[in-house]
């Protein structure tokens, strides 16, 4: 359903022709249709009148925009797969398009990788001596224009950054979905883009864990060694600290991943301590809590009712401040070995926005092969996915409430 309002300088009794403006170079369509009156020289009453303008806006488009920030190799893909699974369906690259497209589309969601807004391709960055983390390598104006367009219901032609060749490929058409997720290094860097986000998440991986994950990822490649992996992380660190890390203070939810405190001197990075830092006062988002909202709780679920194997599981919940904002932090240290541990923990958490008892456990089991399925990363990613579903339903129900009332009457 589209709403159109017409503005005329005089009545439309003269011949008008419709001209639709061509697409701008930025790739989004104007929403205005301009009528021009043919310049027929009629009698005295033919005073010059300006063109008549009709402006249309798609009134029922309510694309909810979610931002997800993290460094490369830090679990954004896994998070995306969990998130799209919560909404149902698998997310796949656009059919029939560029096979190296970074975009994923499912029924409800479209995931855009912000690398597509690189202004410099790999050769360009090499020449200038900048990393992909540097804002100079990214076109924030285009990012803002296109996300704004999609949010207001207008399809855009988005460039494609090909990670295999390192080149910018011809654009692909992105139609406005119900939920748009923009994931990458800089979703919250530009203030204008930040204001378009309905919810934002930052994955904060500590240095030790990042090192361990990258070793796991890269040791199978014959070109790599421990030294090269370390060198790569260290070379990127200054830019990461300067441009990416500061975004975490803007996030509505931060998932912080640290080494475990349950095993002294653990450096394998297999057991993790994960903290879900949730901002208070965010519209449509009520933080998850343990037992008693707003209090501080330490909880070890293993005991008489539940037996766990080494090193066990430890939870902590409490209010705190994070970069000057009021937050609630839910923390899990350890890992799940068995199904009943997971369902036991789920039954004691509150405000997890599940639609039925055991939904978190079910989602975790569905993706038992994903990394983090036995610890806090998988648990909190799944819970954040459910909170986003809840946020989406709140936003859409509040927007359709008024027209629905009218149609009922």
């Amino acid at each position: 359903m589209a709403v159109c309002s017409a503005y005329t300088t005089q009545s439309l009794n003269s011949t008008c022709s419709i001209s639709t403006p061509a697409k701008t170079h930025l790739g989004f369509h104007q929403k205005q249709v301009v009528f021009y009156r043919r310049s027929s020289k009629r009698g005295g009453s033919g005073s010059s009148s300006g063109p008549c303008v009709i402006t249309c806006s798609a009134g029922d488009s309510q694309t909810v925009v979610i931002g997800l920030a993290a460094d490369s190799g830090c679990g954004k893909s896994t998070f995306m797969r969990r998130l799209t699974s919560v909404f149902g369906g698998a997310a796949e690259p656009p059919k029939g398009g560029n096979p190296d497209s970074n975009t994923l589309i499912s029924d409800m969601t479209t995931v855009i990788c912000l690398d597509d807004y690189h202004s410099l391709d790999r050769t360009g960055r090499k020449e200038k001596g900048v990393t992909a983390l540097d804002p100079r390598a990214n076109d924030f104006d285009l990012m803002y224009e296109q996300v704004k367009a999609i949010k207001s219901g207008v399809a855009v032609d988005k460039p494609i950054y090909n990670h295999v060749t390192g080149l910018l490929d011809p654009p692909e058409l992105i139609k406005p979905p119900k939920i748009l997720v923009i994931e990458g290094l800089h979703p919250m860097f530009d203030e204008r883009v930040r204001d378009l986000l309905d919810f934002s998440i930052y994955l904060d991986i500590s240095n030790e864990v990042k090192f361990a994950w990258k070793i796991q990822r890269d040791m199978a490649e014959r070109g790599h060694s421990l030294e090269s992996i370390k060198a790569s992380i260290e070379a990127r660190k200054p830019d990461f600290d300067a441009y990416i890390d500061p975004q975490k203070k803007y996030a509505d939810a931060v998932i912080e991943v640290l080494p475990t405190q349950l095993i002294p001197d653990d450096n394998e990075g297999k057991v993790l301590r994960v903290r879900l830092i949730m901002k208070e006062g965010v519209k449509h988002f009520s933080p998850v809590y343990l037992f008693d909202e707003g209090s501080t709780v330490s909880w070890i679920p293993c005991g008489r009712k539940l037996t766990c194997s080494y090193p066990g599981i430890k939870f902590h919940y409490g209010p705190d401040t994070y970069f000057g904002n009021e937050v609630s932090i839910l923390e899990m240290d350890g890992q799940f070995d068995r199904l009943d541990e997971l369902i036991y923990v789920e039954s004691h958490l509150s405000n997890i926005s599940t639609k039925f008892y055991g939904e978190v456990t079910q989602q975790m089991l569905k993706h038992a092969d994903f990394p983090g399925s036995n610890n806090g990363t998988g648990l909190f990613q799944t819970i954040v996915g459910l909170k986003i579903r809840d946020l989406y339903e709140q936003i859409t129900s509040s927007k359709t409430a008024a027209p629905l009332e009218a149609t009922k009457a």
Partner: protein
Amino acid sequence: MQVMKPVRAAPDSISEKVEKSVKEAQEACSDDPASGECVAAWDEVEELSAAASHARDKKKDNDPLENYCKENPETDECRTYDN
């Protein structure tokens, strides 16, 4: 006849790219470790390693046995036994 490839490394072209980029980064950094060239070179290594990892995952998804078992978990070939 089907050729079985080990599902360990990424497709050869990407693996070669990773190997090449690591060598190039090491050369670029031997002169001046703090220079833009050195940093950009290691960033390229990171980007290619991530691409290689995604390619590896994609290849894993195309295992014919896995695909068959997703649809037919009850057949003899696909039954799994957990204690």
